[in-house]
């Protein structure tokens, strides 16, 4: 698989998955679209969509 050759690709992939999971959890706390932001964070060129998420995220609810 093109995506996972070499150890750097594995590290990049695992960090990408971990950050997408964190975005999923964090978006839930803030009343934002969890799946949309998590998928965007994973499939957008990491970490650009994550940076956009951090800029546009709402304050924590409650």
């Amino acid at each position, binding site marked *: *698989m*093109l*995506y996972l*050759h*070499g150890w*750097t*690709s594995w590290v*990049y*992939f695992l960090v*990408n998955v971990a950050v997408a999971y964190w975005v999923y959890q964090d978006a839930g706390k803030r009343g934002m679209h969890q799946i949309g932001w998590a998928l965007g964070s*994973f*499939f*957008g*060129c*990491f970490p*650009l*969509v994550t*940076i*956009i998420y*951090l*800029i*546009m*995220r*709402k*304050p*924590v609810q409650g």
Partner: protein
Amino acid sequence: MEMLQPQIAQTVPAIHIPAQPASASLAPSASSTAASQRQLWTHVGIIACLYAGAILLALRPQWVAGFSLHCAMLSIFHIKCPFCGMTRDFVAILHGKQPTLNPFTWPTVAVLFLGYPGTFFLAWRKRRLDIFYWPVVYKVGLACLVLMCFVNNFAH
């Protein structure tokens, strides 16, 4: 006129306004102040990371471009994401060359490195950091991402 005044006083009920302490109406609560402080430092941290990343890419581009870091969307679906090619284009810009891989590199660089810090500064001065999560900002951002994805795949 003098005759009417007692009648008005009888017909109009007195409006009772409960007294509120000045701190409750004017000063923000401690939790909202803490939340706005967190928001402020998050933006400062993002801007610092953006400029630190730019310095890293200018001085040591091989530390990032030398690794085989592939976009998940391109690898799995064989579709370029809206940002595919931008890291290499940004390195090219930093080294005085023209970007060729993504047509939206210049607008994205302008938005991230000039528009965003400038907007943040103005919003912070006006105490309106909530502009970053206005619904219209989400809609415009999503429309831009769809357009960028389309152009990056089919029109470029």
